[in-house]
């Protein structure tokens, strides 16, 4: 079998990855924003529940979450199962990223907002969130690279993705080295692009920060 035929065969499963990743990015961002803001508000019971969730997720491998969900709950489709499992898993990390971003904002801004008579959610939406968005993009990108990489696990819930096709292809060609090399390159390209975006943003963010410092110094 020629190399390009292999590539074509393997990439038939790439659609699943390309559908799954954006869905998980959006869902984890929603979960992370909501839980991150709630956690930041420091209401005792809610904070404890969120902390429990985050700690549990930090301990459990994504593969185990995928299997637990797949074997326990019927979620309609394998895609749905993979989507929910990855959202639960990565949502916890995004929650922490959002919270970290919020905590980096100087405390005085909350007081300033309150003194203007603004409510908590209003202050969050118009003061905090806009500020942290750019700041947390590099860290978020790092997390999304992990999302992309974790899509290699979804064949355990029966999704016929790249890794599934790879197994089939190897059964025919007995050429695991080339098959997994191709897959490695495919994933590398996708992740590398996200990595590149992250470092671009990071540079511009730190550039802005430097510029602000320089301005302060000049005053």
């Amino acid at each position, binding site marked *: 079998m020629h190399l390009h035929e292999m590539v074509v065969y393997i990439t038939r499963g790439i659609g699943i990855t390309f559908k799954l990743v954006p869905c998980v990015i959006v869902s984890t961002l929603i979960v992370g924003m909501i839980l991150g803001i709630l956690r930041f508000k420091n209401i005792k019971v809610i904070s404890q529940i969120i902390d429990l969730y985050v700690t549990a997720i930090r*301990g*459990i*491998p994504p593969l*185990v979450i995928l299997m637990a969900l797949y074997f326990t709950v019927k979620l309609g489709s394998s895609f749905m199962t993979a989507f929910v499992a990855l959202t639960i898993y990565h949502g916890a990390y995004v929650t922490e990223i959002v919270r970290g971003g919020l905590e980096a904002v100087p405390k005085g801004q909350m007081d300033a907002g309150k003194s203007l008579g603004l409510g908590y959610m209003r202050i969050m939406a118009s003061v905090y969130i806009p500020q942290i968005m750019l700041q947390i993009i590099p860290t978020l990108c790092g997390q999304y690279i992990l999302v*992309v990489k974790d899509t290699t696990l979804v064949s355990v819930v029966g999704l016929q993705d790249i890794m599934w096709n790879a197994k089939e292809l190897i059964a025919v060609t007995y050429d695991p080295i080339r098959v997994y090399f191709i897959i490695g390159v495919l994933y590398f390209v996708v992740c590398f692009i996200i990595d590149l975006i992250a470092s671009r943003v990071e540079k511009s963010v730190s550039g802005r920060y430097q510029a602000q410092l320089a301005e302060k110094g000049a005053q």
Partner: protein
Amino acid sequence: MTSLQFSSWLPILLHGLRVTVLASLAGIVTSIIWGCILASLRALEIKPLSMIIRAYTSIFRNTPLLVVMFFLFYGFPMINLDLPAIACGIIAITLNEGAFVAEIIRGAIQNVKKGEIEAARSMGLSRAQVVHHIIFPLAIRDSVPMILGQSSIIIKDTSLFSMIMIIDLTAAGRQFYAKYFNPTSIWIVGLVYIALFLIFSLIGRLIERKVRVNR
């Protein structure tokens, strides 16, 4: 899950736990060593060497561990290298996580105070000596919290061993399900992983307190 089912499964669970713990420890140690080697080579600031290491870290940070693991597991026999599955798994983890550890240490190296380096240089020490005695010890101490965080990810990485026919914790959970179609085992395994993580975090906090440098 009946108690009879559980007692017949328990030995498998304990076996899996043992494999996961040992593999995790091995993976953590080798990844940290490999990461240190990469980071210190890069700290020597020899251009071509630094470029190679940069490419290496970029490749392995951006390639899924499972792909690397399969590549080695199915690839080694092709070149007539007969390694046990567990060795393939640990090598894959080391290659991947070593890249992350190296990046963590590199970040810490960049944060070592310039003056402390100058103080050593002003005594007439060579670049290698400064890296060895000042930059590296300080960077390692500063990066301990992040390396511990990465280590807890390594514990989770070992769950992929179940996909290359190793009976680890994850595989033990799956085996029970395959026999009785009862997912309770998977949830138990999940709890065991959380327990491992909590124990590891506790130990980590003790280590952190020991090595922290006050300024």
